[in-house]
């Protein structure tokens, strides 16, 4: 572990190199986005002009033009209402709140489960199969029950969105628990033995050795969990009847799809952005915290 070298390296680096890399990456992203939009419109044009109906009928309802979708964001969805973009912005803030609380809750619980399980093979054997099996349960099917069950037990301030956060937490805890366990187990046995010869307590071994080793694993899981929490928040809103978030908006615009398809598309694009923002947030946190991890998990 050349931690000294690793620590001095980033400071020596000038800022221009990452900046140039960033510009390059941004350019690549713009190019690919443009290519995707082009492909979408090309597909639309080819299928409409040739009249192909496979695998599905293409028209302005099934695949609205990109500019129509973007334009819809500046148009009010209903008369005498703010622009759809403004409404969706507030709805995505609401969903982001649910997802963030669920993410935090799930990450803490998942990490705690990982820490407990790494200290007991018996508990690992006893509980891990069920932690794995819990993910095969289609959460959307349980969501109505969770909402009915959890909601009355919550304080008045968080009723409604609190139960959605619980669903988001349910989707979040699993990858974090599994990867924390793997990360904590991946501590170098020689380092473990060295710690033991110095009579280090379990607590010291955990915080000085196991947790730092596990961080790259934990962040890998947090990246998945970031998306999962947004998915959980959107899915959780569907059966809860909440109208303040993106899930409610999706249900709502789904009903008007045949008249105004661009509104559902616009909502989905906002949902996609929200997922990507959460993901990028975790990546940024990882860059800030795991800067000194000597061996990153590839």
């Amino acid at each position, binding site marked *: 572990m050349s931690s000294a070298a690793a620590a001095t390296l980033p400071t020596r680096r000038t800022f221009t190199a990452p900046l140039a890399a960033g510009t390059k990456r941004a350019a*690549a*992203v713009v*190019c*690919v986005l443009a290519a995707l939009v082009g492909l979408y419109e090309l597909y639309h044009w080819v299928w409409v002009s040739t009249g192909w109906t496979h*695998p*599905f009928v293409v028209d302005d*309802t*099934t695949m609205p033009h990109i500019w129509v979708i973007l334009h819809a964001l500046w148009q009010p969805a209903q008369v005498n209402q703010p622009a759809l973009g403004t409404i969706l912005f507030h709805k995505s803030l609401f969903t982001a709140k649910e997802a963030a609380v669920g993410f935090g809750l799930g990450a803490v619980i998942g990490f705690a489960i990982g820490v407990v399980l790494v200290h007991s093979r018996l*508990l*690992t*054997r*006893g509980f*891990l*199969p*069920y932690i*794995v*099996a819990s*993910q*095969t*349960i*289609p*959460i*959307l*099917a349980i969501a*109505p*029950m969770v909402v*009915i*069950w959890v909601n009355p037990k919550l304080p008045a301030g968080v009723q409604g969105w609190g139960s959605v956060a619980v669903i988001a937490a349910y989707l979040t805890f699993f990858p974090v628990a*599994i990867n924390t*366990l*793997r990360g904590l187990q991946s501590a170098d046995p020689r380092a473990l033995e060295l710690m033991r010869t110095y009579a280090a307590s379990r607590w010291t071994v955990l915080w000085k050795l196991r947790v730092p080793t596990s961080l790259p*694993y934990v962040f*890998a*899981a947090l*990246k*998945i969990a*970031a*998306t999962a929490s*947004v*998915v959980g928040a*959107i*899915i959780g809103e*569907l*059966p809860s009847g909440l109208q303040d978030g993106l*899930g409610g908006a*999706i249900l709502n615009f*789904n009903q008007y*799809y045949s008249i105004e398809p661009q509104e*559902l598309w616009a*909502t*989905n694009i906002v*949902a*996609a952005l*929200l997922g*990507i923002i*959460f*993901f*990028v947030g975790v990546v940024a946190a990882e860059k800030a915290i795991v800067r000194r991890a000597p061996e990153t*998990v*590839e």
Partner: protein
Amino acid sequence: MSGIVVTGISPGMGRRLGQQAREWLPALVVFALAIAAWEGAIAAFHIQQFLLPKPSDIVKSCWEQRHTLWPAGWYTFKEALGGFVIGSLAGMAAATLIGRFKTLGAALMPIAIAANAIPIIAFAPIFNQWFDPLSPNSKMAIAAVLCFLPVMVNTLRGLQSASPRQVELMRSYAASSFTIWRRVRVPTALPYVFTALKVASVLAMIGAVVGEYFGGSYDALGVLIRSKAQILDFTTAWAGILVASLLGIALYAAVVACERLVVRWAPEARDS
């Protein structure tokens, strides 16, 4: 970033599967205790039946309504399986294609990873509009799209993770690039692919059930669970969830079994 895909399995769990039942004893004890606690809590705290039915009632309902539940489960399972196969094959094909061109792969990788962060389930209503909501094709499409990205990202990562020394050795023997692909890259990639397939198998079932939430045939499990929950028949709804979970676990187990058959040469890879 091993992380786009998390394996659902602890180190060594796959290997242990066939070993002594002693390994599974703690899990069985936990299972028995959990069921007992569940039943006991309902009796002790008088939890209302509609909130959380007794496990025995759920299993009973699962058996009594087997003529509606299991055909519905099978219907949804076929959607999930179709989507799983289509999405995974497309993901592997796309990764193979992209892996041929290094710069393309380098440019697409960050975008594929970002695209993985999109809550694709939110697009389920659009798929229902594209394909007839009542046809299984719309759910198959959702499941396929859900499976595509993790499989593609992991396959690409697997193909790129071949040891340079092995590739150079093959080159020094004048092996063609197809031979290198066949003998080095694919064997190295397979454990990665199977990790993704395990994740995809779970996603496929969830995608199919969620897709049905936005409308689907009355023969489908997701529609059945939703309609039963709406009329507060939670025992049947939970029985439906049990069926969905069992089918999801079955698909997952099938992938694990395939992995054990196929990836014989890389015992350490099974753990990762």
